[in-house]
């Protein structure tokens, strides 16, 4: 079986969450969830993984606000965001394209980003469309800024951006992305052509490492089964696992 694009992204995120204590996964995030369950499976009990949609991983008993309370307190180490636009300085836009008051496109809203982006030490950005339309120099609406002025309380922010083409690291001091690795089958030129923001890069960008054989076996075994119980469509699309009703 060939390595699928989703498995490459899971592998990158899995490396990025090494050694963290509590990973919270938001709604509709099968790729981050798979990476988190893989970390648990590889070195049990591994990190705490909380995931509201999953009965076995729903650790919350104080309503929706508990995640934000825990993040504010520093109890959450990792969270994930995407964005309609992601800007070169790490800003994310979950709200509107064009003028905010009369937008060309409107998205659901900022969710918890304007707070979590400041409070969770490791925010991992992922975007399944790598294009000049999505990765832009400046976003049209800042749901959450990538960096803050001195004096503003901030303990968290973006550490990486993972796309179908590559893995960028975010340099907080410079407020810029830096190309870390390019996924197998893709090139630096492809990344340059499809990225709307300027970024730093090494002279030769390494290829994104594949998951080891043991990790891949676990991912395609128990982790895939667990993911398929929570995200039946994803389990079917990626691993051909039959959908099971949760009713």
């Amino acid at each position, binding site marked *: 079986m060939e390595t699928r694009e989703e498995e490459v992204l899971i592998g990158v995120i899995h490396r990025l969450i090494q050694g963290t204590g509590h990973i919270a996964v938001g*709604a*509709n995030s099968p790729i981050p969830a798979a990476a988190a369950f893989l970390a648990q499976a590889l070195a049990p009990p591994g990190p705490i993984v909380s995931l*509201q*949609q999953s*009965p076995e991983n729903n650790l919350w*008993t*104080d*309503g*929706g*606000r*508990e995640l*934000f309370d825990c993040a*504010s307190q520093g109890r959450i180490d990792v969270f994930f965001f995407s964005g309609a636009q992601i800007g070169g300085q790490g800003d994310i836009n*979950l*709200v509107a394209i064009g003028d*905010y*008051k*009369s*937008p*060309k*496109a*409107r*998205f*659901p*809203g*900022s*969710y*918890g*980003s*304007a*707070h*979590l*982006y*400041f*409070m969770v030490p490791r925010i991992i950005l992922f975007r399944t469309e790598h294009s000049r339309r999505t990765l832009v120099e400046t976003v049209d*609406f*800042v*749901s*959450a*800024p990538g960096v*803050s*002025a001195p*004096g*503003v*309380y901030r303990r968290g922010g973006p550490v990486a951006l993972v796309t179908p083409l590559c893995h960028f690291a975010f340099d907080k001091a410079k407020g810029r992305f830096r190309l870390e690795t390019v996924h197998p089958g893709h090139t630096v030129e492809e990344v340059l052509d499809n990225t709307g923001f300027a970024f730093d890069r090494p002279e030769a960008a390494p290829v994104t490492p594949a998951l080891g054989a043991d990790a891949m076996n676990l991912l395609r075994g128990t982790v895939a089964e667990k993911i398929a119980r929570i995200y039946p469509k994803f389990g079917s699309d990626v691993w051909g696992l039959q959908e099971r009703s*949760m*009713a």
Partner: protein
Amino acid sequence: MARICDLDEAIAGIEDGALLAIPADYAGNAMTATRALIRRGVKELRLLTVPTSTLQAELLIGAGCVAALETSAVGFGELGSAPRFTAAVKAGTLPIKDATCPAIHAALRAGEMGNPFGPIRGLIGSDVLANRPDWRVIQNPFPPHDPIVVVPAIRPDVALFHAAMADRAGNVWIGRRRDLFHIAHASMRSIVTVERIVEDNLLQDETLAPATLPSFYLDRIAVAPRGAWPLKFGSEYEEDTQHILAYIRQAATEEGFRRYLDEHVFGLVAA
């Protein structure tokens, strides 16, 4: 204290122009009551989603019941965007206060505590804050004396939600969806639909009492079996995903949305 009545009498407690709070779609949404509200022709609602919404906000907005909206997000996640919400915002016909989830929680929590305001970290430098002239940045009175956002308390006129069961005294078992406590505590009064009425007093059962909302927070309670349909309700029933996908397709146009209302709101009463 709450009284148990029929659905139309229950929703009569939601007046035109009310600041109405509704929960996120994992917590218990009174969808049968929402359809009844639309049939009644409720107007000028100021709608607060706590902190996000899917079909409930979408239907109220599409049906023209909402004069103003405060939300952290309205959309169907993986299934797609909320077409009537999106169209209304793009057309500029829906005044919107874009928030962020924990800011809505903070404002309601201040309301729950009877405080005039509450602080919340983050937000500084965002366009969320830049577009909220009703929020303030003050200096933290304690070290490190950083600038910090404070939001004014929100006390909704009325909260509307769906729960598993009520007893004859008007106490309501909320279960694990503690959001419903927070919304009810903050609101001036709550109107609730339930799957069923039970005979024993919930507050006198040590296992059920911890997750029971006492009657004095509530105003009116109506029985509405499968009252959250087509949304998920706790462990009792799953989301009717096919219905929602069909809705999203149909509501892509105003005409399609009207046909949906005719069929599912004004026509046959959804079971």
